[in-house]
Protein backbone atom coordinates (compact mmCIF):
# COMPACT_ATOMS: atom_id res chain seq x y z
CA UNK A 1 0.00 0.00 0.00
CA UNK A 2 1.25 3.42 -0.95
CA UNK A 3 2.06 5.37 2.17
CA UNK A 4 0.80 8.68 0.75
CA UNK A 5 -2.57 7.17 0.00
CA UNK A 6 -2.65 5.58 3.43
CA UNK A 7 -1.94 8.96 5.02
CA UNK A 8 -4.69 10.64 3.00
CA UNK A 9 -7.12 7.93 4.03
CA UNK A 10 -6.19 8.44 7.69
CA UNK A 11 -6.65 12.22 7.36
CA UNK A 12 -10.13 11.64 5.93
CA UNK A 13 -10.95 9.34 8.86
CA UNK A 14 -9.60 11.86 11.35
CA UNK A 15 -11.66 14.73 9.93
CA UNK A 16 -14.78 12.59 9.86
CA UNK A 17 -14.33 11.45 13.48
CA UNK A 18 -13.18 14.87 14.66
CA UNK A 19 -16.28 16.51 13.17
CA UNK A 20 -18.53 14.33 15.29
CA UNK A 21 -16.53 14.97 18.46
CA UNK A 22 -16.49 18.70 17.73
CA UNK A 23 -20.26 18.87 17.30
CA UNK A 24 -20.88 17.12 20.63
CA UNK A 25 -18.14 19.02 22.46
CA UNK A 26 -19.45 22.39 21.31
CA UNK A 27 -22.75 21.82 23.11
CA UNK A 28 -21.03 20.68 26.29
CA UNK A 29 -18.83 23.73 26.22
CA UNK A 30 -21.71 26.17 25.61
CA UNK A 31 -23.68 24.85 28.55
CA UNK A 32 -20.59 24.76 30.76
CA UNK A 33 -19.68 28.30 29.78
CA UNK A 34 -22.96 29.71 31.03
CA UNK A 35 -23.99 27.40 33.86
CA UNK A 36 -20.60 25.99 34.95
CA UNK A 37 -22.29 22.63 34.65
CA UNK A 38 -20.80 19.31 33.55
CA UNK A 39 -23.74 17.94 31.59
CA UNK A 40 -23.72 14.14 31.52
CA UNK A 41 -27.14 13.99 29.87
CA UNK A 42 -25.82 15.74 26.77
CA UNK A 43 -25.07 12.41 25.08
CA UNK A 44 -28.68 11.32 25.42
CA UNK A 45 -29.79 14.18 23.19
CA UNK A 46 -27.98 12.28 20.43
CA UNK A 47 -30.11 9.28 21.26
CA UNK A 48 -33.54 10.97 21.44
CA UNK A 49 -33.13 12.66 18.06
CA UNK A 50 -31.99 9.48 16.32
CA UNK A 51 -34.88 7.47 17.75
CA UNK A 52 -37.31 10.15 16.59
CA UNK A 53 -35.85 10.03 13.09
CA UNK A 54 -36.06 6.23 12.93
CA UNK A 55 -39.63 6.33 14.20
CA UNK A 56 -40.70 8.98 11.69
CA UNK A 57 -39.07 7.31 8.71
CA UNK A 58 -40.71 4.04 9.72
CA UNK A 59 -44.02 5.93 9.51
CA UNK A 60 -43.20 6.90 5.94
CA UNK A 61 -41.97 10.45 6.48
CA UNK A 62 -39.32 11.38 3.86
CA UNK A 63 -35.82 11.02 5.23
CA UNK A 64 -34.66 14.68 5.09
CA UNK A 65 -37.81 15.81 6.93
CA UNK A 66 -37.33 13.05 9.48
CA UNK A 67 -33.77 14.28 10.08
CA UNK A 68 -34.89 17.86 10.65
CA UNK A 69 -37.68 16.67 12.93
CA UNK A 70 -35.17 14.51 14.82
CA UNK A 71 -32.91 17.49 15.44
CA UNK A 72 -35.96 19.41 16.65
CA UNK A 73 -36.79 16.56 19.04
CA UNK A 74 -33.21 16.67 20.39
CA UNK A 75 -33.45 20.42 20.94
CA UNK A 76 -36.82 19.98 22.63
CA UNK A 77 -35.43 17.28 24.95
CA UNK A 78 -32.65 19.67 25.90
CA UNK A 79 -35.12 22.46 26.67
CA UNK A 80 -37.30 20.12 28.73
CA UNK A 81 -34.27 18.79 30.62
CA UNK A 82 -33.25 22.34 31.50
CA UNK A 83 -36.77 23.34 32.55
CA UNK A 84 -37.60 20.22 34.59
CA UNK A 85 -34.31 19.10 36.10
CA UNK A 86 -31.62 21.78 35.83
CA UNK A 87 -33.42 25.03 36.54
CA UNK A 88 -34.50 23.97 40.07
CA UNK A 89 -30.89 23.19 41.00
CA UNK A 90 -29.34 26.20 39.30
CA UNK A 91 -26.86 27.95 41.57
CA UNK A 92 -26.22 24.81 43.64
CA UNK A 93 -22.64 23.55 44.08
CA UNK A 94 -21.27 22.21 40.80
CA UNK A 95 -21.29 18.64 42.09
CA UNK A 96 -25.07 18.86 42.61
CA UNK A 97 -25.50 19.98 39.00
CA UNK A 98 -23.25 17.16 37.81
CA UNK A 99 -25.16 14.56 39.83
CA UNK A 100 -28.51 15.84 38.57
CA UNK A 101 -27.36 15.43 34.98
CA UNK A 102 -26.01 11.96 35.79
CA UNK A 103 -29.41 11.00 37.20
CA UNK A 104 -31.11 12.43 34.12
CA UNK A 105 -28.93 10.27 31.85
CA UNK A 106 -30.03 7.27 33.84
CA UNK A 107 -33.70 8.25 33.47
CA UNK A 108 -33.51 8.99 29.73
CA UNK A 109 -31.59 5.84 28.83
CA UNK A 110 -33.90 3.60 30.81
CA UNK A 111 -36.92 5.39 29.43
CA UNK A 112 -35.61 4.53 25.96
CA UNK A 113 -35.14 0.90 27.04
CA UNK A 114 -38.67 0.91 28.45
CA UNK A 115 -40.23 2.29 25.27
CA UNK A 116 -38.03 0.86 22.50
CA UNK A 117 -36.33 -2.10 24.29
CA UNK A 118 -32.61 -2.27 24.89
CA UNK A 119 -31.65 -4.09 21.72
CA UNK A 120 -30.09 -2.09 18.89
CA UNK A 121 -32.18 -1.03 15.90
CA UNK A 122 -30.97 -0.38 12.41
CA UNK A 123 -30.77 3.22 11.25
CA UNK A 124 -32.34 3.30 7.78
CA UNK A 125 -30.12 5.46 5.57
CA UNK A 126 -31.23 6.19 2.01
CA UNK A 127 -29.01 4.83 -0.76
CA UNK A 128 -27.45 8.17 -1.67
CA UNK A 129 -25.91 8.30 1.80
CA UNK A 130 -24.20 4.96 1.44
CA UNK A 131 -22.54 5.70 -1.86
CA UNK A 132 -18.87 4.71 -1.71
CA UNK A 133 -16.20 6.78 -3.42
CA UNK A 134 -12.96 4.94 -4.13
CA UNK A 135 -9.73 6.33 -5.53
CA UNK A 136 -6.37 4.76 -6.38
CA UNK A 137 -7.82 1.26 -6.74
CA UNK A 138 -9.59 1.41 -3.39
CA UNK A 139 -6.64 2.63 -1.35
CA UNK A 140 -8.64 5.74 -0.51
CA UNK A 141 -12.32 5.15 0.19
CA UNK A 142 -14.99 7.19 1.83
CA UNK A 143 -18.77 7.29 1.79
CA UNK A 144 -21.24 10.11 1.33
CA UNK A 145 -21.82 10.00 5.07
CA UNK A 146 -18.21 11.01 5.63
CA UNK A 147 -18.60 13.97 3.28
CA UNK A 148 -21.95 14.95 4.75
CA UNK A 149 -20.77 14.78 8.33
CA UNK A 150 -17.61 16.76 7.67
CA UNK A 151 -19.30 19.47 5.61
CA UNK A 152 -22.36 19.79 7.84
CA UNK A 153 -20.11 19.97 10.91
CA UNK A 154 -17.91 22.67 9.41
CA UNK A 155 -20.86 24.67 8.04
CA UNK A 156 -22.92 24.47 11.23
CA UNK A 157 -19.93 25.28 13.44
CA UNK A 158 -19.13 28.32 11.25
CA UNK A 159 -22.78 29.30 11.57
CA UNK A 160 -22.56 29.01 15.33
CA UNK A 161 -19.42 31.13 15.33
CA UNK A 162 -21.26 33.82 13.36
CA UNK A 163 -24.25 33.54 15.72
CA UNK A 164 -22.30 34.12 18.92
CA UNK A 165 -20.32 37.02 17.49
CA UNK A 166 -22.89 38.88 15.35
CA UNK A 167 -26.34 38.50 16.88
CA UNK A 168 -27.68 40.12 20.04
CA UNK A 169 -28.71 36.77 21.47
CA UNK A 170 -25.31 35.24 20.76
CA UNK A 171 -23.48 38.17 22.29
CA UNK A 172 -25.82 37.96 25.28
CA UNK A 173 -24.91 34.29 25.72
CA UNK A 174 -21.24 35.16 25.77
CA UNK A 175 -21.91 37.96 28.24
CA UNK A 176 -23.79 35.53 30.50
CA UNK A 177 -20.89 33.10 30.29
CA UNK A 178 -18.50 35.88 31.28
CA UNK A 179 -20.49 37.06 34.29
CA UNK A 180 -24.06 35.96 34.80
CA UNK A 181 -24.90 38.45 37.54
CA UNK A 182 -23.61 41.39 35.54
CA UNK A 183 -25.47 40.19 32.45
CA UNK A 184 -28.68 40.04 34.47
CA UNK A 185 -28.01 43.53 35.87
CA UNK A 186 -27.81 45.11 32.43
CA UNK A 187 -31.19 43.62 31.63
CA UNK A 188 -30.46 40.43 29.72
CA UNK A 189 -33.08 37.72 30.10
CA UNK A 190 -30.89 34.98 31.56
CA UNK A 191 -33.57 32.28 31.46
CA UNK A 192 -34.18 32.90 27.77
CA UNK A 193 -30.45 32.79 27.01
CA UNK A 194 -30.01 29.53 28.90
CA UNK A 195 -32.97 27.94 27.13
CA UNK A 196 -31.56 28.99 23.75
CA UNK A 197 -28.13 27.67 24.70
CA UNK A 198 -29.64 24.30 25.64
CA UNK A 199 -31.68 24.20 22.43
CA UNK A 200 -28.63 24.91 20.25
CA UNK A 201 -26.37 22.55 22.19
CA UNK A 202 -28.91 19.73 22.04
CA UNK A 203 -29.64 20.38 18.39
CA UNK A 204 -25.95 19.97 17.62
CA UNK A 205 -25.92 16.77 19.66
CA UNK A 206 -28.95 15.54 17.71
CA UNK A 207 -27.25 16.19 14.37
CA UNK A 208 -24.07 14.49 15.59
CA UNK A 209 -26.13 11.54 16.83
CA UNK A 210 -27.72 11.04 13.44
CA UNK A 211 -24.40 11.21 11.63
CA UNK A 212 -22.97 8.79 14.19
CA UNK A 213 -25.92 6.46 13.61
CA UNK A 214 -25.57 6.78 9.82
CA UNK A 215 -21.93 5.74 10.08
CA UNK A 216 -22.47 2.80 12.41
CA UNK A 217 -25.84 1.83 10.95
CA UNK A 218 -27.49 1.20 14.31
CA UNK A 219 -29.01 3.11 17.20
CA UNK A 220 -29.30 1.94 20.81
CA UNK A 221 -30.33 3.56 24.10
CA UNK A 222 -26.76 4.13 25.31
CA UNK A 223 -25.39 5.19 21.94
CA UNK A 224 -24.63 8.70 23.20
CA UNK A 225 -22.49 7.61 26.07
CA UNK A 226 -19.16 6.82 24.47
CA UNK A 227 -19.13 9.92 22.22
CA UNK A 228 -20.11 12.00 25.25
CA UNK A 229 -17.07 10.84 27.20
CA UNK A 230 -14.81 11.64 24.26
CA UNK A 231 -16.49 15.03 23.89
CA UNK A 232 -15.71 15.75 27.55
CA UNK A 233 -12.05 15.19 26.79
CA UNK A 234 -12.28 17.32 23.65
CA UNK A 235 -14.02 20.17 25.47
CA UNK A 236 -11.58 20.16 28.38
CA UNK A 237 -8.52 19.89 26.15
CA UNK A 238 -9.80 22.77 24.05
CA UNK A 239 -10.82 24.89 27.01
CA UNK A 240 -14.06 24.11 28.83
CA UNK A 241 -16.48 26.95 28.12
CA UNK A 242 -14.90 28.11 24.89
CA UNK A 243 -16.72 27.28 21.66
CA UNK A 244 -13.67 27.59 19.42
CA UNK A 245 -11.71 25.52 21.93
CA UNK A 246 -14.28 22.73 21.83
CA UNK A 247 -14.09 22.58 18.03
CA UNK A 248 -10.31 22.55 18.12
CA UNK A 249 -10.32 19.91 20.86
CA UNK A 250 -12.74 17.75 18.87
CA UNK A 251 -10.57 17.72 15.76
CA UNK A 252 -7.38 17.23 17.80
CA UNK A 253 -8.93 14.27 19.59
CA UNK A 254 -10.09 12.77 16.30
CA UNK A 255 -6.58 13.17 14.91
CA UNK A 256 -5.00 11.67 18.03
CA UNK A 257 -7.24 8.59 17.96
CA UNK A 258 -6.58 7.97 14.28
CA UNK A 259 -2.87 8.54 14.90
CA UNK A 260 -2.85 5.86 17.60
CA UNK A 261 -4.86 3.37 15.58
CA UNK A 262 -3.39 4.08 12.15
CA UNK A 263 0.24 4.83 12.84
CA UNK A 264 1.01 3.63 16.37
CA UNK A 265 2.23 0.13 17.20
CA UNK A 266 -0.58 -2.41 17.07
CA UNK A 267 -0.24 -3.27 20.78
CA UNK A 268 -1.16 0.34 21.56
CA UNK A 269 -4.49 0.61 19.74
CA UNK A 270 -6.62 -1.32 22.28
CA UNK A 271 -5.39 1.18 24.88
CA UNK A 272 -6.75 4.08 22.81
CA UNK A 273 -9.36 5.09 25.38
CA UNK A 274 -6.89 4.84 28.25
CA UNK A 275 -4.49 7.17 26.44
CA UNK A 276 -7.28 9.64 25.69
CA UNK A 277 -8.36 9.77 29.33
CA UNK A 278 -4.79 10.00 30.56
CA UNK A 279 -4.53 13.07 28.32
CA UNK A 280 -7.64 14.44 30.02
CA UNK A 281 -6.07 14.00 33.45
CA UNK A 282 -2.81 15.61 32.31
CA UNK A 283 -4.73 18.61 30.99
CA UNK A 284 -6.81 18.95 34.16
CA UNK A 285 -3.62 18.97 36.20
CA UNK A 286 -1.34 21.17 34.16
CA UNK A 287 -3.58 23.25 31.95
CA UNK A 288 -7.12 23.18 33.37
CA UNK A 289 -8.10 26.12 31.16
CA UNK A 290 -7.32 24.04 28.08
CA UNK A 291 -5.56 25.22 24.97
CA UNK A 292 -7.74 28.25 24.34
CA UNK A 293 -8.07 29.75 27.79
CA UNK A 294 -5.72 31.25 30.31
CA UNK A 295 -4.87 28.97 33.20
CA UNK A 296 -7.42 29.27 35.92
CA UNK A 297 -6.23 28.25 39.33
CA UNK A 298 -8.12 25.11 40.31
CA UNK A 299 -5.31 23.19 41.94
CA UNK A 300 -4.21 23.25 45.55
Amino acid sequence: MNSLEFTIQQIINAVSLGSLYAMVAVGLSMVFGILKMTNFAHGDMMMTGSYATVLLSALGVPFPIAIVAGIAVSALTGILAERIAYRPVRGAPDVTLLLTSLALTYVLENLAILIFSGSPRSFPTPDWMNEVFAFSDGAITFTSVDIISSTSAILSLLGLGWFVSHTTTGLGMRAAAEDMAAAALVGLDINRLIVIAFAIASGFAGLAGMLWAAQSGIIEPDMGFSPLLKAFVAAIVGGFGSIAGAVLGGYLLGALEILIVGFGPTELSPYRDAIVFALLIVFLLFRPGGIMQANREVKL
Partner: protein
Amino acid sequence: MNRILILAGLASLALCAWVLPLIVSDYVVRLLIMVCINIVLVGSMCLANGFTGVFSLGQVGFVAIGAYVSGILSLSLADKASYLPDLPMFLAHIEMATLPATLIAGLVCAAIAIVVGLPLMRLSGHHVSVATMGFMIIVNVVIINADSFTRGARTFTGVPTDMTLPWVVGWAVLAIFLLARLIYSPIGLALRSVREDVIAAQAVGLPVLGTRLLAFSFGAFLAGVGGSLYGHYLGSFSAQTFFFPLMVSLITMLVLGGMSSLSGVVTGVIVVTALSEMLRNLERGVHLGPVSIPPLFGASQVVLGLLFILVMIYRPRGLFEDREISSVFKRRKQRSNS
Protein backbone atom coordinates in the same frame (compact mmCIF):
# COMPACT_ATOMS: atom_id res chain seq x y z
CA MET B 1 -22.11 0.82 80.45
CA ASN B 2 -21.97 2.08 76.89
CA ARG B 3 -19.35 -0.46 75.94
CA ILE B 4 -21.41 -3.33 77.35
CA LEU B 5 -24.37 -2.13 75.29
CA ILE B 6 -22.27 -2.05 72.12
CA LEU B 7 -20.90 -5.56 72.81
CA ALA B 8 -24.39 -6.87 73.49
CA GLY B 9 -25.59 -5.27 70.28
CA LEU B 10 -22.78 -6.84 68.27
CA ALA B 11 -23.36 -10.24 69.84
CA SER B 12 -27.04 -10.15 69.04
CA LEU B 13 -26.27 -9.00 65.49
CA ALA B 14 -23.86 -11.92 65.03
CA LEU B 15 -26.45 -14.30 66.45
CA CYS B 16 -29.02 -12.92 64.00
CA ALA B 17 -26.60 -13.39 61.13
CA TRP B 18 -26.07 -17.04 62.12
CA VAL B 19 -29.67 -17.89 62.82
CA LEU B 20 -31.42 -15.81 60.16
CA PRO B 21 -30.55 -18.01 57.17
CA LEU B 22 -32.32 -20.91 58.89
CA ILE B 23 -35.56 -18.93 59.16
CA VAL B 24 -35.94 -16.76 56.06
CA SER B 25 -35.76 -17.71 52.39
CA ASP B 26 -32.61 -17.79 50.28
CA TYR B 27 -33.86 -14.76 48.40
CA VAL B 28 -33.96 -12.63 51.56
CA VAL B 29 -30.51 -13.87 52.60
CA ARG B 30 -29.12 -12.89 49.20
CA LEU B 31 -30.71 -9.46 49.54
CA LEU B 32 -29.20 -8.99 52.99
CA ILE B 33 -25.77 -9.99 51.70
CA MET B 34 -26.09 -7.40 48.93
CA VAL B 35 -27.14 -4.76 51.47
CA CYS B 36 -24.07 -5.49 53.61
CA ILE B 37 -21.66 -5.41 50.65
CA ASN B 38 -23.22 -2.18 49.44
CA ILE B 39 -22.83 -0.68 52.92
CA VAL B 40 -19.09 -1.35 52.67
CA LEU B 41 -18.95 0.10 49.12
CA VAL B 42 -21.08 3.19 49.76
CA GLY B 43 -19.30 3.69 53.09
CA SER B 44 -16.04 3.71 51.17
CA MET B 45 -17.39 6.56 49.04
CA CYS B 46 -18.79 8.72 51.82
CA LEU B 47 -15.38 9.43 53.34
CA ALA B 48 -13.90 11.31 50.37
CA ASN B 49 -17.11 12.35 48.60
CA GLY B 50 -19.19 13.38 51.60
CA PHE B 51 -16.95 14.29 54.48
CA THR B 52 -13.91 15.63 52.63
CA GLY B 53 -15.74 17.26 49.74
CA VAL B 54 -13.80 15.76 46.84
CA PHE B 55 -16.50 14.07 44.80
CA SER B 56 -14.84 11.07 43.20
CA LEU B 57 -16.65 9.29 40.38
CA GLY B 58 -13.84 6.72 40.18
CA GLN B 59 -14.52 4.62 43.25
CA VAL B 60 -15.83 1.78 41.09
CA GLY B 61 -12.34 1.55 39.57
CA PHE B 62 -11.06 0.53 43.00
CA VAL B 63 -13.95 -1.89 43.42
CA ALA B 64 -12.89 -3.54 40.17
CA ILE B 65 -9.23 -3.71 41.22
CA GLY B 66 -10.25 -5.21 44.58
CA ALA B 67 -12.42 -7.87 42.97
CA TYR B 68 -9.77 -8.88 40.44
CA VAL B 69 -6.84 -8.88 42.88
CA SER B 70 -8.72 -10.97 45.39
CA GLY B 71 -10.07 -13.19 42.64
CA ILE B 72 -6.60 -13.90 41.23
CA LEU B 73 -5.20 -14.61 44.70
CA SER B 74 -7.94 -16.98 45.80
CA LEU B 75 -8.52 -18.90 42.57
CA SER B 76 -7.68 -22.57 43.05
CA LEU B 77 -4.44 -23.80 41.46
CA ALA B 78 -6.28 -26.06 39.02
CA ASP B 79 -8.56 -23.22 37.88
CA LYS B 80 -5.57 -20.94 37.55
CA ALA B 81 -3.80 -23.39 35.26
CA SER B 82 -6.82 -23.66 33.00
CA TYR B 83 -8.21 -20.08 33.05
CA LEU B 84 -5.04 -18.02 33.44
CA PRO B 85 -2.18 -20.03 31.91
CA ASP B 86 -0.04 -16.93 31.31
CA LEU B 87 0.01 -15.78 34.91
CA PRO B 88 3.51 -14.88 36.19
CA MET B 89 5.17 -17.53 38.37
CA PHE B 90 4.87 -15.73 41.68
CA LEU B 91 1.08 -15.55 41.29
CA ALA B 92 0.53 -18.91 39.64
CA HIS B 93 1.41 -20.89 42.76
CA ILE B 94 -0.60 -18.91 45.26
CA GLU B 95 -3.95 -20.05 46.53
CA MET B 96 -5.19 -17.94 49.39
CA ALA B 97 -8.15 -18.04 51.70
CA THR B 98 -10.74 -15.34 51.20
CA LEU B 99 -9.85 -13.29 54.26
CA PRO B 100 -6.15 -12.60 53.52
CA ALA B 101 -6.98 -12.13 49.82
CA THR B 102 -9.56 -9.51 50.78
CA LEU B 103 -7.12 -7.66 53.01
CA ILE B 104 -4.43 -7.69 50.32
CA ALA B 105 -6.98 -6.43 47.78
CA GLY B 106 -7.76 -3.53 50.11
CA LEU B 107 -4.10 -2.72 50.64
CA VAL B 108 -3.35 -2.82 46.91
CA CYS B 109 -6.20 -0.37 46.32
CA ALA B 110 -4.97 1.93 49.08
CA ALA B 111 -1.47 1.94 47.57
CA ILE B 112 -2.84 2.71 44.10
CA ALA B 113 -5.02 5.44 45.60
CA ILE B 114 -1.97 7.14 47.10
CA VAL B 115 -0.18 7.12 43.74
CA VAL B 116 -3.26 8.25 41.80
CA GLY B 117 -4.42 10.65 44.48
CA LEU B 118 -1.14 12.49 44.79
CA PRO B 119 -1.87 14.41 41.58
CA LEU B 120 -5.67 14.09 41.47
CA MET B 121 -6.44 15.23 45.01
CA ARG B 122 -5.02 18.63 44.11
CA LEU B 123 -8.11 19.23 41.97
CA SER B 124 -11.44 20.43 43.33
CA GLY B 125 -15.10 20.60 42.36
CA HIS B 126 -16.17 18.99 39.12
CA HIS B 127 -12.55 18.76 37.95
CA VAL B 128 -11.82 16.02 40.44
CA SER B 129 -15.04 14.21 39.49
CA VAL B 130 -14.19 14.16 35.80
CA ALA B 131 -10.55 13.21 36.45
CA THR B 132 -11.48 10.30 38.74
CA MET B 133 -14.03 9.16 36.18
CA GLY B 134 -11.12 9.10 33.75
CA PHE B 135 -9.29 6.88 36.22
CA MET B 136 -12.21 4.46 36.29
CA ILE B 137 -12.30 4.27 32.48
CA ILE B 138 -8.53 3.68 32.35
CA VAL B 139 -8.88 0.84 34.89
CA ASN B 140 -11.65 -0.65 32.75
CA VAL B 141 -9.54 -0.50 29.58
CA VAL B 142 -6.53 -2.00 31.34
CA ILE B 143 -8.60 -4.87 32.76
CA ILE B 144 -10.02 -5.65 29.33
CA ASN B 145 -6.54 -5.68 27.78
CA ALA B 146 -4.52 -7.38 30.53
CA ASP B 147 -5.47 -10.82 29.20
CA SER B 148 -2.97 -12.88 31.15
CA PHE B 149 -4.21 -11.55 34.50
CA THR B 150 -7.93 -10.98 33.95
CA ARG B 151 -8.98 -13.12 30.95
CA GLY B 152 -9.58 -9.83 29.12
CA ALA B 153 -13.13 -9.12 28.07
CA ARG B 154 -14.20 -12.67 28.91
CA THR B 155 -15.83 -13.48 32.24
CA PHE B 156 -13.47 -14.03 35.13
CA THR B 157 -14.82 -17.13 36.78
CA GLY B 158 -14.00 -19.79 39.38
CA VAL B 159 -13.74 -17.42 42.34
CA PRO B 160 -14.85 -19.37 45.44
CA THR B 161 -18.34 -18.21 46.37
CA ASP B 162 -17.95 -18.33 50.13
CA MET B 163 -19.63 -15.09 51.17
CA THR B 164 -22.02 -16.06 53.91
CA LEU B 165 -24.22 -13.67 55.82
CA PRO B 166 -22.17 -13.63 59.07
CA TRP B 167 -19.05 -12.70 57.11
CA VAL B 168 -20.55 -9.77 55.25
CA VAL B 169 -22.42 -8.55 58.35
CA GLY B 170 -19.07 -8.59 60.13
CA TRP B 171 -17.42 -6.61 57.35
CA ALA B 172 -20.26 -4.08 57.15
CA VAL B 173 -20.18 -3.53 60.92
CA LEU B 174 -16.40 -3.26 60.90
CA ALA B 175 -16.49 -0.75 58.01
CA ILE B 176 -19.07 1.45 59.71
CA PHE B 177 -17.19 1.17 63.03
CA LEU B 178 -13.86 2.19 61.46
CA LEU B 179 -15.50 5.03 59.54
CA ALA B 180 -17.26 6.28 62.67
CA ARG B 181 -14.03 6.20 64.67
CA LEU B 182 -12.27 8.15 61.93
CA ILE B 183 -15.02 10.65 61.18
CA TYR B 184 -15.88 11.54 64.78
CA SER B 185 -12.27 12.07 65.79
CA PRO B 186 -9.92 15.06 65.39
CA ILE B 187 -8.96 13.68 61.97
CA GLY B 188 -12.62 13.67 60.98
CA LEU B 189 -12.85 17.29 62.05
CA ALA B 190 -9.91 18.02 59.75
CA LEU B 191 -11.70 16.25 56.89
CA ARG B 192 -14.78 18.38 57.34
CA SER B 193 -12.79 21.62 57.65
CA VAL B 194 -11.12 20.83 54.35
CA ARG B 195 -14.57 20.37 52.84
CA GLU B 196 -16.04 23.56 54.27
CA ASP B 197 -13.25 25.97 53.39
CA VAL B 198 -9.92 25.05 51.84
CA ILE B 199 -8.31 28.43 52.49
CA ALA B 200 -9.40 28.58 56.12
CA ALA B 201 -8.17 25.01 56.64
CA GLN B 202 -4.79 25.93 55.18
CA ALA B 203 -4.68 29.04 57.35
CA VAL B 204 -4.96 27.02 60.56
CA GLY B 205 -2.16 24.78 59.33
CA LEU B 206 -4.05 21.73 58.03
CA PRO B 207 -2.26 19.89 55.22
CA VAL B 208 -5.16 19.91 52.75
CA LEU B 209 -3.57 17.53 50.24
CA GLY B 210 -2.55 15.08 52.98
CA THR B 211 -6.00 15.14 54.54
CA ARG B 212 -7.72 14.51 51.22
CA LEU B 213 -5.22 11.79 50.41
CA LEU B 214 -5.95 10.06 53.71
CA ALA B 215 -9.68 10.08 52.99
CA PHE B 216 -9.18 8.95 49.38
CA SER B 217 -6.83 6.09 50.20
CA PHE B 218 -8.81 4.83 53.20
CA GLY B 219 -11.91 4.96 51.00
CA ALA B 220 -10.02 3.02 48.35
CA PHE B 221 -9.03 0.40 50.94
CA LEU B 222 -12.68 -0.13 51.84
CA ALA B 223 -13.64 -0.11 48.15
CA GLY B 224 -11.07 -2.83 47.51
CA VAL B 225 -12.39 -4.87 50.42
CA GLY B 226 -15.95 -4.35 49.18
CA GLY B 227 -14.91 -5.32 45.68
CA SER B 228 -13.35 -8.51 46.98
CA LEU B 229 -16.51 -9.36 48.92
CA TYR B 230 -18.61 -8.63 45.84
CA GLY B 231 -16.36 -10.83 43.72
CA HIS B 232 -16.57 -13.69 46.19
CA TYR B 233 -20.33 -13.27 46.33
CA LEU B 234 -20.78 -13.31 42.53
CA GLY B 235 -18.16 -15.98 41.78
CA SER B 236 -17.79 -14.78 38.20
CA PHE B 237 -17.66 -11.24 36.89
CA SER B 238 -16.24 -9.19 34.03
CA ALA B 239 -14.85 -5.70 33.55
CA GLN B 240 -18.35 -4.50 32.66
CA THR B 241 -19.65 -5.57 36.10
CA PHE B 242 -17.66 -2.71 37.59
CA PHE B 243 -18.50 0.19 35.32
CA PHE B 244 -20.99 3.02 34.95
CA PRO B 245 -24.18 1.17 35.96
CA LEU B 246 -22.62 0.11 39.29
CA MET B 247 -21.26 3.62 39.78
CA VAL B 248 -24.67 5.19 39.23
CA SER B 249 -26.42 2.81 41.61
CA LEU B 250 -23.79 3.34 44.35
CA ILE B 251 -24.02 7.12 43.93
CA THR B 252 -27.81 6.95 44.14
CA MET B 253 -27.52 5.16 47.50
CA LEU B 254 -24.87 7.62 48.68
CA VAL B 255 -26.77 10.75 47.72
CA LEU B 256 -30.23 9.62 48.83
CA GLY B 257 -29.35 9.07 52.47
CA GLY B 258 -26.94 11.95 52.74
CA MET B 259 -23.28 11.56 51.98
CA SER B 260 -22.00 13.28 55.09
CA SER B 261 -23.80 11.00 57.53
CA LEU B 262 -23.09 7.35 58.29
CA SER B 263 -26.72 6.80 59.22
CA GLY B 264 -27.52 8.29 55.83
CA VAL B 265 -25.22 5.80 54.11
CA VAL B 266 -26.87 2.81 55.77
CA THR B 267 -30.36 4.19 55.18
CA GLY B 268 -29.59 5.00 51.55
CA VAL B 269 -28.36 1.47 50.89
CA ILE B 270 -31.37 -0.14 52.55
CA VAL B 271 -33.96 2.15 50.93
CA VAL B 272 -32.52 1.90 47.41
CA THR B 273 -32.01 -1.88 47.62
CA ALA B 274 -35.51 -2.46 48.97
CA LEU B 275 -37.08 -0.09 46.46
CA SER B 276 -35.28 -1.51 43.45
CA GLU B 277 -36.19 -5.08 44.50
CA MET B 278 -39.84 -4.12 44.86
CA LEU B 279 -39.86 -2.28 41.54
CA ARG B 280 -38.04 -5.13 39.83
CA ASN B 281 -40.82 -7.49 40.86
CA LEU B 282 -43.38 -5.07 39.45
CA GLU B 283 -41.32 -4.79 36.28
CA ARG B 284 -41.89 -8.44 35.44
CA GLY B 285 -45.58 -7.70 35.05
CA VAL B 286 -48.32 -7.93 37.64
CA HIS B 287 -51.70 -9.62 37.66
CA LEU B 288 -54.12 -7.79 39.90
CA GLY B 289 -57.24 -9.88 39.46
CA PRO B 290 -58.63 -9.01 36.02
CA VAL B 291 -56.11 -6.20 35.44
CA SER B 292 -52.69 -7.30 34.25
CA ILE B 293 -49.82 -4.90 33.76
CA PRO B 294 -47.41 -6.00 31.05
CA PRO B 295 -43.71 -6.33 31.91
CA LEU B 296 -41.97 -2.97 31.85
CA PHE B 297 -38.22 -3.47 31.58
CA GLY B 298 -36.25 -0.46 32.71
CA ALA B 299 -39.13 1.00 34.73
CA SER B 300 -37.38 0.46 38.08
CA GLN B 301 -34.35 2.42 36.95
CA VAL B 302 -36.54 5.22 35.63
CA VAL B 303 -38.25 5.51 39.02
CA LEU B 304 -34.92 5.42 40.89
CA GLY B 305 -33.46 8.05 38.57
CA LEU B 306 -36.47 10.33 39.06
CA LEU B 307 -36.17 9.85 42.81
CA PHE B 308 -32.51 10.83 42.53
CA ILE B 309 -33.43 14.04 40.68
CA LEU B 310 -36.15 14.86 43.24
CA VAL B 311 -33.65 14.41 46.08
CA MET B 312 -31.21 16.71 44.26
CA ILE B 313 -33.89 19.38 43.87
CA TYR B 314 -35.60 19.24 47.26
CA ARG B 315 -32.97 17.85 49.59
CA PRO B 316 -29.59 18.13 47.87
CA ARG B 317 -27.70 17.05 50.98
CA GLY B 318 -29.70 13.86 51.38
CA LEU B 319 -32.33 12.66 53.82
CA PHE B 320 -30.06 12.89 56.87
CA GLU B 321 -27.99 15.88 55.68
CA ASP B 322 -25.11 15.75 58.20
CA ARG B 323 -27.02 14.39 61.18
CA GLU B 324 -26.67 10.92 62.68
CA ILE B 325 -29.33 8.82 64.37
CA SER B 326 -27.28 8.77 67.56
CA SER B 327 -27.14 12.58 67.73
CA VAL B 328 -30.94 12.75 67.59
CA PHE B 329 -31.13 10.50 70.67
CA LYS B 330 -28.46 12.56 72.43
CA ARG B 331 -30.34 15.77 71.84
CA ARG B 332 -33.53 14.23 73.26
CA LYS B 333 -31.64 13.12 76.34
CA GLN B 334 -30.19 16.57 76.84
CA ARG B 335 -33.58 18.13 76.46
CA SER B 336 -35.17 15.79 79.03
CA ASN B 337 -32.31 16.38 81.46
CA SER B 338 -32.56 20.16 81.37
